[in-house]
């Protein structure tokens, strides 16, 4: 039986294997994903992002427990960085989530970025789709510990929680608008620490000043102490409140439109490039063009036009 059918029949090993095939870029994975696609679109996708060590994994663990109390099945995709020097990675997010390992209602997968920027792996979207097809009600994505620019999560998740910690002090001023714009909920974790109130106040003040503040959904700042399960129910309630906002306001439509447009365009770009590049690579044109450019016998603009014309027949501008 093919992987997709086994997955739909509840086979966990098949799901784990397909995720591997996706991650390793196997062509066969695309065929399996096509079969699974009609069974996706049901999971609620939550993004958890924030700086390294903020307590993201600990929060994911607690949020998972909270959803399990509500009898929801939970998929978790936890991403850690690949070493640019060796291509290896230590994926350690699971350490905080071990208590769910044996729960049939929870599936945890660790992914390495494998050179992809933006805070996620290239495979993240497809791995989420597999979990969706497995029947997970909720899929939680933990991004790598991010600075400011790794904000791909906002296009992947329905609801994004940005996790901060006290003691950012004056640095909080340095937080770029980027990260403020992607949060649907803001969490000041490690609320047991001094300064938690101050950090929460400052964060709330910055959100007030945000030029976007007239939007219908006003993100709140919540305090949690993930390591002692404090503030988690409130956080999950707020996440759920955002989810119902998305549906009641119709904002979900806009979100899905943006997400799918982007997804399609990226895939198109990737495939088109692979097609054309593969073509000129095999027929030797690539070498020819590079030589022509180096000798300045040819300009790059005409070279591209000539290739497109050859591949697609007379495409110009």
């Amino acid at each position, binding site marked *: 039986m093919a992987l997709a059918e086994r997955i739909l029949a509840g086979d966990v090993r098949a799901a784990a294997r397909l995720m*591997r095939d996706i991650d390793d870029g196997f062509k066969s994975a695309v065929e399996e994903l096509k079969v699974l696609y009609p069974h996706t679109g049901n999971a609620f996708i939550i993004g958890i992002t924030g700086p390294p060590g903020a307590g993201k994994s600990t929060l994911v663990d607690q949020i998972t427990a909270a959803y399990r109390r509500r009898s929801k099945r939970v998929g978790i995709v936890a991403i850690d960085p*690949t*070493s640019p020097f*060796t291509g290896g*990675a230590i994926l350690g997010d*699971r350490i905080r989530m071990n208590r769910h390992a044996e729960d049939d209602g929870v599936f945890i997968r660790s992914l390495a970025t*494998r050179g992809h920027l933006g805070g996620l792996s290239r495979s993240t979207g497809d791995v989420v789709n597999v979990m969706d097809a497995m029947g997970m009600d909720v899929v939680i994505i933990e991004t790598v510990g991010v600075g400011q620019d790794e904000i791909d999560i906002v296009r992947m998740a329905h609801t994004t929680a940005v996790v901060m910690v006290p003691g950012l002090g004056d640095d909080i001023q340095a937080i770029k608008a980027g990260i403020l714009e992607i949060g649907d909920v803001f969490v000041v974790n490690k609320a047991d620490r001094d300064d938690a109130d101050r950090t929460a106040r400052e964060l709330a003040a910055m959100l007030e000043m945000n030029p976007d503040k007239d939007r219908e959904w006003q993100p709140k700042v919540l305090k949690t102490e993930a390591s002692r399960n404090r503030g988690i129910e409130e956080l999950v309630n707020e996440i759920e409140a955002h989810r119902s906002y998305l549906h009641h306001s119709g904002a979900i439509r806009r979100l899905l439109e943006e997400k799918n447009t982007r997804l399609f365009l990226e895939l198109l770009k990737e495939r088109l490039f692979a097609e054309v590049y593969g073509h000129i690579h095999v027929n030797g044109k690539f070498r020819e063009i590079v030589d022509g450019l180096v000798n300045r016998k040819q300009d790059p603009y005409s070279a591209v036009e000539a290739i497109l014309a050859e591949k697609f027949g007379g495409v110009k501008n």
Partner: protein
Amino acid sequence: MSERKLRVLVGKPGLDGHDRGAKIIARAFRDAGFEVIYTGLHQTPEQIVAAAIQEDVDCVGLSILSGAHNTLLPRVCELFREKQAEDIIVFGGGVIPDDDIPGLKTAGVKEVFTPGTSTEDIVAWVRVNVIPRA
């Protein structure tokens, strides 16, 4: 067709709190270009096996310095068999008397590395003995 990246789970079963060796091994594997799922201390064999299956690893490396290797390592192998996942290779290391090693191997542990083994030797062993499953 693309190439498989080797995935390995490094874990510490039981109540053993010695994690220096496990961390050194995890780092050596990362530096060898493997993807290492490090699950930390105090794992039950059941948790390790469930995690290995969800993560689709090629092999599981367990570190035990407490003396409980004769129960914990065979138990992990047994659980993999129960789950029809005995294709996932089990190996280990730590403070394990030489006399115990043959019994562990009979139970399904593919290799055991005792204190003083260089991480280069361990990485070399993995490269030869663990071929990422097609």
